[in-house]
């Protein structure tokens, strides 16, 4: 135990740097996915087939390919397919955004479809166009409904980031690997890393749970509760 703490102290900068990369990668991809996912969800629900078909394909593709495959594909294949060459960090960001936006799109879609159709009819009968009733009536309610699901996806997204070490992004996992290969302290280092992931993910998911319970006390949810 004493030894483990000493090791932890000795490599604190390397590990903290890795944790910083992990956190920024998951936060940035989550932010991007919040937007991309919403656009994809609206696309899937569009009345126009030429919008609906590609949006649905995008979401299904993102949800039905493993994150590792997406990561390697973006990093090594996109330069040839699309002529887009990213640094390892940006490739990771793109891959994580693809994956997460697919799941978020489904969360949004569930929220949108759960909004009572009667309100849509009422909005139409008041002369609102489709765009206006989506923006003013459906989405505000759909997004509020989706919040718990969206927050849960953040936990998944955070955990998925550990995969980016395979293309040498210096995240927490990659930094741990560096230390292990330099010191051969395999057991203590990977144990420490496991504990760090656990502590962070546990803290996030507990906050999500707290927030989710907290939500229904504001606005019209308060009235419904």
């Amino acid at each position: 135990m004493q030894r483990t703490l000493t090791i932890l102290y000795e490599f604190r900068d390397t590990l903290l740097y890795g944790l910083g990369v992990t956190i920024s990668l998951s936060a940035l991809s989550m932010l991007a996915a919040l937007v991309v996912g919403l656009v994809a969800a609206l696309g899937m629900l569009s009345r126009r087939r030429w919008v609906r078909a590609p949006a649905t394909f995008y979401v299904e593709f993102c949800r039905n390919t493993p994150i590792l495959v997406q990561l390697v594909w973006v990093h090594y294949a996109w330069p040839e397919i699309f002529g887009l060459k990213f640094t390892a960090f940006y490739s990771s960001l793109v891959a994580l955004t693809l994956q997460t936006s697919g799941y978020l799109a489904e969360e949004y879609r569930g929220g949108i479809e759960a909004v009572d159709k009667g309100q849509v009819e009422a909005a139409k009968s008041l002369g609102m166009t489709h765009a206006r009733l989506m923006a003013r009536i459906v989405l505000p309610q759909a997004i509020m409904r989706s919040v718990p699901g969206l927050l849960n996806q953040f936990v998944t997204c955070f955990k998925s980031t550990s995969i980016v070490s395979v293309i040498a992004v210096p995240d927490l996992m990659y930094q741990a690997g560096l230390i292990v290969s330099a010191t051969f302290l395999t057991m203590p280092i990977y144990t420490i890393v496991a504990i760090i992931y656990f502590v962070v993910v546990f803290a996030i998911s507990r906050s999500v749970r707290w927030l989710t319970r907290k939500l229904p006390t504001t606005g019209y949810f308060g009235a419904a509760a």
Partner: protein
Amino acid sequence: MTEAADSMAPAIAFRTVSKSYGQHQVLFDVSAEIPRGATVAVLGSSGSGKSTLVRCVNRLEDFQGGEIGVGDVRLAPGVATRGARKLNDRQVAKYRTDIGMVFQSFNLFQHLTVLKNLIEAPVGVLGWSKEKAVARARDLLAKVGLPDKEEAYPSRLSGGQQQRIAIARALMMEPSIMLFDEPTSALDPELTGEVLSVVKELALGGRTSLIVTHELTFARDVASHVMVLDHGRLVEFGPAKEIFRAPRSERTRRFFESGGLR
């Protein structure tokens, strides 16, 4: 067309309107001319197609045969036209601003307060100033007997209160036509009175109204005309007085009897 002739033109003209859901036909060649300013009770047992017919007027439902003339707009299967011009989605939306609708399930916007429910469309769709909309909203809230509820969320209100708000919301737009789709069917019996009196006092005056209802006493009280539908066919249409006194069809007579009217 001269002005005199124009004022004689029906507000709503159903011409052989037919509708089906897949194989199941729900309206059969319904024809009726609704005079301007009429209050029409649309009667019939459940599943007779009366709600569907009314929902066709503001294009919440399309239909497969015939046409409906509403003012200078002609609704036909899959298309709405004004003169020779086809209306696009935006123009159909605009067309709906002149037709208020009250639903069985109220359909208030759950995320908005009562006041915001009322001013949303006048400000956003009609382009009123917020001051004008709020002033009219307060006036209507007082008239429906809920002046103290403007900051309440719909889910805090009773069904009767929600429906009175929904009526006020429709009236905000100052529509020349009002459609009521079973406005009291979702309410506890003790709450129907407050809603029906708001309909009668506030919503009917001067405009053309179609009221789908099961409240025969109310219908006899307010209606100038009566339509009776049976399995998608119009079996009776005419001035309310005559029909309530002496229904022409056997179907209507039985319907009135089952409703306890005679």
